[in-house]
Structures are given as structure tokens and as C-alpha cells.
């Protein structure tokens, strides 16, 4: 039996090797509860570094042109990369 862990890294730009500036972790095994403000440094310096440690990229942010008139507006974090690991639970077949 396996469970999914999600690591979400928010990068400086669309390059997967660019620095991670924000991060979230969601643990489908239930072993760890991550929450706002619980760490001061990202678990990996970039998405590429996470991939080299076995994380699989399952979603890349689409690059969309800004709406005319809103070229300078900022809102949500644009460069959100979603990564997963599948974890085998101890004792499971």
C-alpha cells in the first residue's frame, strides 16, 4: 500500500533550477502535519534539486501573458511546481 506526499515549491522564475522562495508539504501518510510558518528554509534549493532526490514533477505552472491593463499587477505566486513521492507504508504488502 502506498500513499502520496506532495511537495510544492514556489520558484523565483520558470526555470526549474531557480531558487525556491516558498514551499508547502502535504503528507498523505499522515506521519507529519506541516503548516504555515513551521520552517525557515526550503527543503531543497530548487525543484531540480528535489528531482535529483527522487521527487517527481506532476505539475508545472503555465506561462500565460498578462491581461492587457494588468501587466504590473501581482497576485498569487506564479512559479508553483508540484512534486510527488509515493511512500510504501511499513508492513503493507
Amino acid at each position, binding site marked *: 500500500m502506498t500513499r502520496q506526499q506532495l511537495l*510544492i515549491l*514556489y*520558484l*523565483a*522564475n520558470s526555470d526549474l533550477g*531557480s*531558487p525556491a*522562495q*516558498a*514551499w*508547502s*508539504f502535504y503528507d498523505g501518510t499522515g506521519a507529519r*502535519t*506541516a*503548516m*504555515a*510558518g*513551521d*520552517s*525557515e*528554509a*526550503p527543503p531543497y534549493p530548487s525543484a531540480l534539486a528535489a528531482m535529483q532526490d527522487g521527487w517527481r514533477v506532476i505539475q508545472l505552472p503555465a506561462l500565460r501573458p498578462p491581461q492587457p491593463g494588468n501587466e*504590473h*499587477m*501581482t*497576485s*498569487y*505566486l*506564479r*512559479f508553483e511546481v508540484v512534486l510527488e513521492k509515493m511512500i510504501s507504508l511499513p508492513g503493507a504488502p
Partner: protein
Amino acid sequence: MTIGAPAAQPAGDERRHLLPSAQVAHFVARGFLRLDGVVPHPLCAEALREIEADARPGAFAARRSERAKAEAGRPMDEVWATGGGLAAVMRLPAVRGMVQSLLGPGAIHDHHHAHVVEAGHRYSQPWHADAIIDPRTAFDIQLFFFFHDTPRAMGGTMILPGSHLRRVHESDIARYQNFLGQVATVCQAGTVLVCHHGLWHCGQPNSTGARRYMWKVRLNPAAAQRLTWNTADLTAPEVRELLTTPEPWHGNEGRLEIVNRLRLWRQLTGDDGFDADYWLTRLEMPRG
């Protein structure tokens, strides 16, 4: 350079407490100011007793009073005109000077609420911006008062500097957990954090054996916010330096944040030609 007419300046003690331009530029750039030692300790104790007794229930209190209902939209000076404790806090010259500096004269009371985090509360509030998505350039302020010492184990409120100009709706941002540059408010009794209404924040867990209190007051401007502070240092180089310093989590959008700060500074000063590092001037050049 076009400079708009300054707002009416207060007299006496309050005038001494007007913020300098550098502090207002810090607020414009980062979305908050922290002032330590503003509330004297005896008044902190009095305010805490009022909160614990629910003597001035706010807009979200279970025992919302008729007075609390009627407070919204009235001048701050009327709402807190008499009484000790919380009212006396709001009449402190340092508090009034700060409010005058950011909102101008006649600030309007929006609401107040005592945030309580029980001892041993293990979970963080998700990141959020208060109220609803707000497209205005004019801004409200929120005063976060800490009436007792707040060590990291107790929280306190975590803020994300430089998030205030982002257009987001409330807890849409709850998926995010950590940012480079996030700041937990760790402070001594008597500290006040004044925040732009759009600043992202979240209440942190409280692993101590004591309740944590944070009293929040939201205020609106009564008129256009224009040169409402102590402008003696308006042309200081520090102003441009503050406005052009990105936060560590801004990344590729740091330049856009600077442009939005510059536009807000123009609005606050009435100086339509203000710029830093040529960002706006370049865009405003006549083109053939």
C-alpha cells in the same frame, strides 16, 4: 514635480509623534511598521483586564453589543473618546500620531477584535489577507497590539513583508505554508504592529501554558491620504532605497512590486513625477 496640498497637520504632542517619510516609505514598501514600547505596562495590564472581561466586545464577539454595532463608520476619536484601558490605548499620542501619519485626520473606526489563542494550541492559522479582495490603491490600516510579552513559543502573529499590494482574496493563499522572509512577531508587552490591510498574515501555534492575546483594530481614511506625515525628510535618499528593496520571496516579480510601490508613493505624495531607477519614467516616455 507636482506636489499636492498636505493634509491638515495636528498640533502639540501628536505632531511630535508623526512618522518621518522614511518610516512611511518602509510601510509602503513592506506593508507594516513595528513600534516597540508604545503602550506603557500599567496600561497593557488594564487593556488585558478589559479583554478578559469582554468589556468592549468587538464586531465578531459572541456577545456583540449594541455599542459595538454602532461603532463601525464613526470617527475613531468619538469611538474611543472616554474611558481607560483600550480607549486610553487608542488615545496615546504615539498611536494617534501613527494613525494620522498613515490615514490623515479624522480616521474612521472599522472594527476591533481580540484574537485569543489558547495555551497549547498546536496549529497555525492558514495564511490569509483580511476582509475581501480590495482593488483600491487607498488603504486601511490594522493595528495589532501585543499587551503581554510574546516569545516565539507563543506565536505570535506571522506576517509576510511585501505581500500587501498583491491582489488576493482572503484564504485563497492558504495552500502556501512558508516563505523566505516571513516574520513571526516576537515582542515585549506594549508593542504595536501597524499593517496595510492587504498584508498576508497568520496566527501561529501557542506551545506555552498561557493564553495569547492580540487586539486588532481596523481603521479607514476619512479623505485622500496625501502628505499626512512629517515630511521634513521627504527627499531623503533612504526613501528611494526602501521603495526599491525587494523581499527575498519576490523573485522575478520584484520589479513589478517596486513599480506598484512607486505608484502608491506617488499617490501619497501627489508627486506624479516621482520615480526610482527609471522604472516608471521609461514607460511614460512619449513614443512616436
